[in-house]
């Protein structure tokens, strides 16, 4: 998969997992908080994305559940590949932001 640009909600999911392992519901809550309420992941999108990210090897499922948590919840954590993707994407976005700022400034002065 050479496609570098990450779908926005994938980016947010990885961002949520960068903080540590989580189950799906917690990821959804995190994403909503991280985006200031702008991004709401609906069930099929969330779990579809999780399956997809797992298939790409960017996240993985924890083999066993942490204690005192519900049995049926699956826990996820980011893999090294996922972490690299996230870093790349963050850098790409940073470059983009710098570029945009520079362009807007020149547009203003003109």
């Amino acid at each position: 998969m050479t496609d570098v640009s990450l779908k926005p909600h994938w980016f947010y999911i990885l961002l949520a997992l960068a903080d540590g392992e989580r189950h799906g519901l917690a990821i959804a809550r995190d994403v909503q908080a991280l985006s200031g309420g702008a991004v709401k992941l609906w069930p099929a999108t969330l779990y579809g994305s999780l399956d997809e990210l797992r298939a790409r090897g960017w996240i993985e499922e924890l083999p066993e559940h942490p204690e005192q948590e519900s049995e049926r919840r699956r826990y996820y954590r980011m893999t090294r590949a996922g972490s690299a993707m996230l870093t790349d994407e963050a850098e790409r976005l940073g470059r983009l932001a710098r570029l945009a700022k520079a362009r807007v400034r020149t547009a203003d002065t003109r």
Partner: protein
Amino acid sequence: MSRTYRALLRLAPRELRERHGAAMDELFAERLSAARGPAARMGVWAHALTDLLQARVASWHTAGAPLTVQIDERTSLMAGSDIRYAWRALLRQKGATTLVVCMLALGIAGDVAVFSVVNGLFLRPFPFPHPERLVSINTRAPKWNLDIVGINYPDFAIWRRDQKLFEAITTYQEANFNVADASGATQVLGALITYEFPTVLGVEPVLGRSFTAAEDTPKGPLVVLLSTALWRERFGADPSAVGRAIRLDGIARTIVGVMPPEASFPDDIKLWIPLQGDPAQSYQSYDGDGIGRLRAGVTAEQADADLRRAHQPVWDAADKTHLVTPFARALRETYVRNFRSAARTIMAAVAVLLLIACANVAAVMLARAVARRREMGIRLALGSTRARLLRQLLIENVMLALAGGVAGFMAGRWAVAALVALIPNQLPPWAAITIDARVIAFSFATVAATVVVFGWAPALHAIGGDLRSAVTATTNGTTGAPRGRRTLWALVGGEFALAAAMLVCAMLMLKAFDRVRHVDPGFRPDHVLAFAVPLSEGTRPKPEQQTAFWRDLLPNLRALPGVDAAGLISCAPLAGCHRGNFFTVETALPRPDGKDPVVLTRYASAGYFEAMGIRLKRGRVFTQADERSASAHAVVVDETFVRTFWGQGADGLGRRLKPRDSNGDWFTVVGVVGDVKHYGLEQPTRPGLYFPLDLNPQPTLTVAIHAAQDPATLLPTIRDVLHRLDPEIPLVRVRTMDEAIRRSTALRSAQSWMLGVFATLAFVLAIGGAYGVATYLVTQRTREIGIRVALGACTEDVLRSVVAHGLGVVLGGVAAGLVASVFLAGLLGDALFGVSTHDAGVLTFVSVVLVTTALVANGVPARRAARIDPMRTLRTE
């Protein structure tokens, strides 16, 4: 957890669903519970639905995994590709797809809502074991014109002894009890029951025991059964309440048990005490209602006959002329009679609406099908089979119907809530109106039927006929297939016929409602407050004590600031009470039918007529003097009484009457007052009269107060007055007379309102259908119109040629609808309240509105077509 969301999960790809179903449900539930208000909740549902559909569509793009695991893989793959193809076809025609989905949703929502109500009232069984074996028992007196007399306890004792086909029978009387404790005085509804009552209903106490036969005898012990609700409220659901005492009407009674919620039948009963009737009582009191439980396999008719057989000893001994006859009939019949005709009308309206929606769907689908003849022709020519094409069209229709069904179901849930809110106090308490499996099955059956009937026909149409012409025909070239056009116009004509019929019926109902609202109630409803004051027979057992209380109360109320009249009445208008008697009337006209009319008997104090605003026609009303000297023997009668007994135009003043079979004194008519709509604005008036209050002291009376300001604002001061006189007495059934009138017409208002809404929807759908078909046909004729304009036709010519045909169809449809409406309105019968079924104003209004709007619906696309630059249309070929 949401069961509906669980069902919707089927829309998502199977793998996703199986792996994450529970977690998805959890997330959805969290979102739903975070949503505030119905609009937000609808939003969550919409989001979730789109989300699931998107996941499904996305899975087709990736298409890595096999779609399904079926026996014939080839077929399943083809079905998969059909679904994808159909999805694309539907997306391509966004406008038509949205239209069809909305129309289906509308029809289904109406269905779901109305079926839920009908289901709750008529189909769902009572919450008792073997509810079909329950019958209501009562007596009637045909010679007295009375359908329901009530049950006399000694007669009941004989039935109980002699009946053979019942497992058990019971009689009960509802009564109000004052419950007073430290927190204040309230009144609760209770019932006096025979010990068989729980056995008949098939309910068991949840705590303690029910009454024994020994407790249900005259002078038996003072015991009581509490409802679960009262037990919670007064004792905090403490099990040790059994055995303790509770003060009712100033008398302490021992609690022997607590009954389950469903025992509160037929009304919201809070406590039960044993009837303790005396089979040997010397007087007759037809105060009881009855319920019986049939033995297995016995019909209501057999039970009815059995009861009459058991009644024989009563006829032989006391009632040789068979005046009173007992009867038994299915329990539900007693409680739903008021609703039956209303529900039937609404059901018919919904059926018509659904029919119009379906016709619309069919029209849109047919238009689509005709437009796709070329595509179908090419696919056939390329070797596709007709079966394959049909299946593909069917899949398209199923997808459309599913979307419409889901949307309609959501809207229907909302509509049910709205409906229940519209008729709150009119519904019997046991009628649970919810969406159950049956409603879901019903609405999906409707969807399936719509798809099969209205989806297949156009599909067949599209692939039938001459192939070659279909292939060579250009899509927007010459006029479309004439057969398709005829069918389209037939559908539009039919829609207009149905819409016209429905509009006429709705307008007639609205007119009837308006008439009912303007019926003169016979009293002045504004600024009048009425409330009942029940005295405890425990604290004031003697009639003199009761009279003394009433004498104290009135001056206190009259002294309140703003009050300009106050009076007492035994039975206020629209309160649902009735006391009928027979009278011997001097110089009465002979009755042609030999039936003696029942006279509504009330006891009124001085000041009542002024407070209620009942008009005095002749003579005078009661004064304080009548109250002080009951020996004056004055009586006030109403105009219907005068007309019934002495004929039209009689004066009545000074004539005399007395209760039938009484050897007492005669009463002289001192005044004649206007009729009061005692039983409801739509009900006929019976002859009525008023005696001075002191003749018959009452433990419960209704106070009527007329005030200069909003009478409801007086309530706190009134409570103070009452509390000063006796802190144990509650104030119940408080309402303004305006409110009483509104409540008495609530069912009719809900019915008219709903019919109006349905008719408006039908109208909108019909206009939409006409517009859609006209637009489609004009598009088909663009080239022809271009040629005409190029050859010199002016805008008017084009307009005329396009509109004329459409308008002819609409006129035909409306005419047929109006004829049909006269018959349909006949079915509304009494609900029309005397409005003629062929009311000229209504018929004219409906035709004008429909034809005018149809003209616009046809004219707009025609105008657009006529304005087209002919060169452009011709060049595109």
